[in-house]
């Protein structure tokens, strides 16, 4: 089963890569597949950790509430906003545009965090 899954994942990736190449009009094979490396931000003790997190474009960031208090993940620009996350609840958002994304807990607004999304070239783009 695992082998099958891996193969399917692989074909999806190849298809996606081809699509990118076609869209871009250049024949490039990306070394790091966009979106392959997902990232987790841990919520505990009324803090987001890591508080500032740099990820590649296409990364899906998952916030995992391990605190004994409900929290939310709310973008300062209202780009995304989770429901209340009780202990053990998670929220994910995929970042498709490079930039600096500030967010906070709308219940406890002194809790703040930042996701920095880098283009695949590694260049930082500041919104």
């Amino acid at each position, binding site marked *: 089963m695992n082998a099958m899954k891996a193969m399917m994942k692989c074909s999806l990736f190849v298809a996606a890569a081809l699509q990118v190449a076609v869209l871009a009009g250049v024949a490039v094979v990306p070394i790091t597949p966009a979106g392959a490396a997902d990232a987790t931000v841990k919520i505990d003790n*009324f803090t987001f950790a890591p508080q500032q997190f740099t990820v590649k474009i296409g990364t899906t960031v998952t916030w995992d509430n391990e605190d*004994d208090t409900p929290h939310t993940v709310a973008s300062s620009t209202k780009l995304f906003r989770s429901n209340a996350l*009780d202990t053990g609840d998670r929220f994910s958002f995929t970042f498709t545009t490079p930039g600096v994304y*500030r967010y906070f807990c*709308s219940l*406890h607004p002194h809790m703040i965090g930042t996701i920095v999304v880098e283009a695949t070239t590694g260049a930082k783009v500041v919104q």
Partner: protein
Amino acid sequence: MSDHDHGNEHASRGVSRRKVLECMTWAGTGVLWTISAGVPRSLGIIDEAMAQDAGSLTFLQISDSHVGFDKPANPNAAGTYEEAINRIKALPIKPSFMIHTGDITHLSKPSEFDDADRIVSQARLDVHYVPGEHDVIDQEAKLYRERYGRGTKGAGWYSFDANGVHFIGLVNVVDLKAGGLGNLGNEQLEWLENDLKGRSASSPVVVFAHIPLWTIYPEWGWGTDDSARALDYLKRFGSVTVLNGHIHQVMQKVEGNLTFHCARSTAFPQPAPGAAPSPGPMKVDDGKLRNMLGITNVTFRRGQQRLAIIDTPLQS
């Protein structure tokens, strides 16, 4: 009373950590307020204060019931809420009404609101609510406003009068800003200014809101960003009593004619400011939990400006 002395010390020297912690050691169960001569003061024992004047206005403050909370700090928050209501039912003098200073529920779920309403209704008293941040988790705070927002303005603020005392319920838990504290907002502050306009400075005012309207510990968000403007409108009044919740512990400060008081939760205690890595629920020995939960009894006596406040633990 020792708690009153603490309050005056805060007013004259500012709130040092040591003083705050000293205040924290003051244990009561409900808060009974008596208004006299401009500065509210709390009396020692609930029965003593209540026995003084049967013709006075007595009301109760309950706070932070967090119905739905089931974590180790208190696996049965609905149960301790019910215990608090039972204590209220057993009071020798029936209060005129109750105020609930927010965090009725833990997660704003319809079933939690249902349970909270069922429990509180056993007291057979009118309840005047303001929301806590846990009550407005759903977008636009629809559930809270449907249940408790009738006749209120904006996100749920309002005022009413009882026995010559002007009561104002404020909302400081919506539209919070990243990195900020509690928030009243311009619309509500303008309403407050108009609400107070033309009122005699001699009429006692009671303001209640969830998050403290004085800055207790900004590192944990324990304060309200724009409360100074509200307090500015209130300072001309001879007696202003500000009742808050949110911090799940008794804390009091007197500043001129303003008395600030935070009530206990009926659900779980929280640590003293800075005494833990975060303000999360504090787990204490099972036998001690009910010493740290409680209700607040407030009495106003006609002809006197000072409110008598008595905090009573569920168990002492």
